[in-house]
């Protein structure tokens, strides 16, 4: 794991909401949702980077920026050193081919009127992956790859279960031989027993095809299982990023600590040190000044209200954005 495939720097994205009548009357500008506030991270070849956080924290927005579904207002994303939002890059279809996204909802992300075979061959044709004569063979190969029966090619999405549909989505992404896969809550809609099947498949394919995966999910146990590194996002900012095992075993940021301790353990006697967070995620329309977590943080002090902490490296851990990280973790 050495070469950096993708680098994200200070990514910022705001969604402008329409001005309401009240805004017009009071001569206020329309409100703004701060979805991403300076996210920086690097994806290394062959790794799985897990992204976790509460709903509305910007995980999916980040994923969508990477595949150019959204254009960020600030910052840049480079892929093998090339800015993916540069003028000439925008027309570049090969980026779309090499970075593929898989979506959360297996019921709405497949065209209900296209058979699996059509879905897969469309991807092959658009990117001219194979000459026309070899397309059928490649479709068969892809079905084999995700362990779907060969007669699946002639069936419509509604004939499949949720887990099978996610396999089709994986096959579609892999059809164009990508280097990077963006999995946005890929298995969240599935039951545990089926979830395990899809995760196993993903891990095995990653190994075989040397894929780099950005795994966005809210299921912490699952993220821990599949990821090499993990980024914890809070209100559009990364608050902690580091090696998966270290981060899960000894989270350093108070938010990571609370988030991880909130996940219920399977052992009835392990009530955990359960740090209960007060209150809820503030609205991204109204991000608190200073450290965005200070309103819920048990360790917050004056400085947290005024100054936003920066993501800095800590020995034996990853990078943490917290003013009090040293005190918190020596007491613990």
């Amino acid at each position, binding site marked *: 794991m050495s070469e950096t495939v993708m680098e994200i720097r200070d990514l910022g994205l705001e969604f402008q909401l329409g001005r309401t009548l009240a805004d017009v009357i009071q001569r206020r500008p329309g409100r703004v949702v701060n979805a991403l506030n300076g996210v920086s991270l690097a994806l290394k070849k062959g790794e799985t980077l897990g992204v976790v956080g509460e709903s509305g924290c910007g995980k999916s927005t980040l994923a969508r920026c990477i595949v150019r579904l959204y254009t960020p207002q600030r910052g840049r994303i480079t892929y093998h050193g090339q800015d993916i939002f540069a003028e000439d890059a925008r027309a570049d279809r090969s980026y779309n081919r090499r970075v593929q996204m898989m979506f959360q909802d297996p019921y709405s992300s497949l065209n209900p009127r296209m058979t699996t075979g059509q879905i897969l061959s469309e991807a092959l044709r658009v990117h001219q992956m194979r000459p026309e004569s070899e397309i059928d063979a490649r479709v068969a190969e892809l079905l084999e790859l995700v362990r779907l029966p060969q007669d699946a090619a002639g069936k419509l999405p509604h004939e499949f279960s949720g887990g099978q549909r996610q396999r089709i989505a994986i096959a579609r992404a892999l059809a164009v031989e990508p280097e990077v896969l963006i999995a946005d809550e890929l298995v969240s809609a599935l039951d545990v027993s089926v979830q395990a099947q899809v995760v196993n498949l993903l891990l095995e394919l990653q190994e075989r095809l040397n894929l780099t995966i950005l795994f966005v999910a809210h299921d912490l146990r699952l993220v821990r299982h599949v990821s090499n590194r993990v980024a914890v996002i809070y209100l559009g900012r990364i608050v902690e990023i580091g090696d998966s095992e270290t981060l899960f075993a000894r989270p350093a940021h108070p938010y990571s600590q609370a*988030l991880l301790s909130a996940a219920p353990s399977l052992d*009835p006697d392990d009530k955990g040190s359960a740090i209960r967070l007060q209150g809820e995620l503030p609205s991204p329309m109204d991000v608190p000044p200073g450290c965005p977590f200070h309103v819920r943080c048990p360790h917050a002090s004056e400085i947290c209200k005024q100054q936003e902490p920066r993501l800095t490296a800590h020995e034996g851990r990853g990078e943490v954005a917290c003013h009090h990280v040293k005190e918190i973790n020596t007491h613990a």
Partner: protein
Amino acid sequence: MTESQPILEVSNLCTTFRRGDRVLPAVRDVSFSLGKGEVLGLVGESGSGKSVTLRSILGLSRRYGEVSGAVRWMGQDIAALPERRLRRIRGREIAMIFQEPMTSLNPLLTVGMQLTETLKAHTDLGRKARRDRAIEMLDHVGIPAAASRLQDYPHQFSGGMRQRVMIAIALAASPKLLLADEPTTALDVTIQAQILDLILSLADELEMGVILVTHDLGVVAQTCQNVAVMYAGRIVETGPVRQVLRSPRHPYTEGLMRSVPQDVPPRTQLYSVPGTPPSLDALPPGCAFAARCANRTAACLDARPALAPVGGQRSLACFNPARAAQGDAA
């Protein structure tokens, strides 16, 4: 923990839906009982009949399907009760909270109105007293500045706050039993922990029984005393949470436990139950799990194992269960 008379006894509950000429037996022969103040978890995958069981207890499924069997509530069979009599039990003695805090509140009525409406239907409180009680309830479930939020509409609350409002409404008439259908599935883990804590502390305080439907085994481990595992409309294993989760004996429970990525080396293959659950209109004559089961024998394909006690307050519906762990039997 509950030696006293059970407050709820469900026996041989069956709920069958018909769609055209398809017969869908969603709940088959479900029996269990619940003691005062007991928290029972009902787990299973989607389509296993957990929610329908819950709805059938309150008579909410009978408009859509055929319900048979008995639901004895404080000694009275409420499954046979006419709608009008049932209405006096619903909300007053048995309350229910649903999964979707977004859709189960009326968007056109203020939260205060929805709360006082319940109080008006189930208590003799006067207008002023109802308002006071409503504020007290909102306060109780941890909504800040409760008095000023009575005139707010559901859309002005966040998901977690809406679920709190739902709980406040459900508990307004001090019910003896709370049916909670995936109350935290739509919420984030940090909020989930808050809501579960709230339900538990209220259950304790009001000596209220709770049936918690969920698919998250972690939630069951942390909140319930007893658990019933459902598969294809039946209870396949039941017993005290510690025993069932520590040493599951039904192969399905075992498979469920093992597919959760906990205490397994990272990035290794997870255990997964092969295959998928059978469709409800094509259930096999034998054990519904047989097709996916590693312990399957010829007997499993022909006959259906009944839920039978195996000692230590546990019951099991399996011909070839895993061996009991030591110190497990009564």
